[in-house]
């Protein structure tokens, strides 16, 4: 008998089944607990999940073509699904030029926009057509955001510099579609060596690099020392 391990024994015989009937009060309570209590136990942990998506990372689908061809390129028939990093914005990490961010629309506060940061506080930007002035100085605590495609976008050229408080999260990773899965790469100058065939990837890298250069050429950085405002 001692050869059998203790845990192989059943605590109750298989033939003894619990009776579920209206006359058995314990059984009805158990059934009620099974239908109400189990979901409630998940609701108890809801703040943990909500808090994680609100303050750390969240998945979102991107709609619209304004970040084409970085996101939702015309060649893809899917809407991109991406990971947004809220922690780096909430923790006050400095925002760099070239980051793609989600921000709340300053005109319609219920909408979210996904745009690229072109200039940060202290820069002077040469604006594009819808903006009334030819050049604009980005004030303290503001950024200048633009879509990658200049035609189909509602960006800072429409509503001016955006306060940092409207920024919601930073794009870090593309999850779907699978052919562009991976972290968001910074645009680098593509290597052109002899003998290396120039495939579609090289051309798209080259195009991204050209766009980046064109964006940078419109921005002049000025040190904030010239513009120290006295706060009372």
């Amino acid at each position, binding site marked *: 008998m001692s050869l059998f391990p203790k845990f192989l024994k059943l605590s109750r015989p298989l033939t003894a089944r619990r009776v579920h009937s209206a006359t058995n009060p314990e059984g009805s309570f158990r059934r009620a607990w099974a239908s109400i209590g189990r979901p409630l136990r998940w609701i108890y942990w809801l*703040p943990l999940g909500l808090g994680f998506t609100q303050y750390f990372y969240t998945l979102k689908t991107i709609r619209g073509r304004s970040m084409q061809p970085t996101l939702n390129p015309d060649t893809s028939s899917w809407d991109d699904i991406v990971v947004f990093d809220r922690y780096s914005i909430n923790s006050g990490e400095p925002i760099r030029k070239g980051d793609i961010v989600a921000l709340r629309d300053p005109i319609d506060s219920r909408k979210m926009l996904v745009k690229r940061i072109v200039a940060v506080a202290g820069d002077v930007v040469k604006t594009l057509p819808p903006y009334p002035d030819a050049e604009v100085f980005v004030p303290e*605590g503001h950024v200048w955001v633009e879509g990658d495609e200049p035609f189909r976008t509602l960006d800072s050229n429409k509503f001016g510099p955006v306060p940092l408080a409207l920024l919601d999260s930073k794009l870090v990773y593309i999850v779907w579609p699978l052919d562009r899965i991976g972290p968001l790469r910074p645009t680098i100058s593509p290597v052109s060596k002899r003998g290396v065939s120039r495939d579609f990837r090289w051309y798209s890298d080259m195009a991204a690099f050209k766009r980046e250069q064109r964006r940078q050429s419109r921005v002049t950085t000025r040190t904030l020392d010239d513009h120290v405002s006295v706060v009372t």
Partner: protein
Amino acid sequence: MIPPSWLHLAEPAVKRVGFTCLHLINFGFAFHLFKENVGGLCFMAGPSMLPTLDNSGELVLESILPHRLFPNQLGRGELITLTSPVDPSRIICKRVIGLPGDVICVDPTGLKAHSTEHVIVPKGHIWVAGDNAAWSRDSRDYGPVSMALVRGRIAARIYPLNRFTVFSKNATYIEH
């Protein structure tokens, strides 16, 4: 041969501590989410709202959920809290002066702009100002602010019990 270890004795204790931590984090998130989305008590500091709210040591009730549900119900004269457009880590309290489409005199006192200068508040924006015009940094400095920056309203003052007040829309319109 595995040497005998005391780890199996520590395992339940470690498990219990880990589970307690998870419960505490869960509670912390619940509290914070409630305070950020429904409302809560907060202390006010600063001279910019001086005749209405004192410089320091006042506890007010901030209501956020009604504004989250009906963002277009803002009225002139209401006390609101908003994230500062200059420094995103600061929350400021101001009074709504103008709604989208209103024509606003930038500074009637003439301190920061000519008293004849007027602007139209653009769509989706509001004009805010502190009650203490001499000591406030508000729309006179940074222009109209986006409605997306508004957190909620100041509903009532709780703490100095003898100064308990329920703040309501108290704008009086003067007809010419």
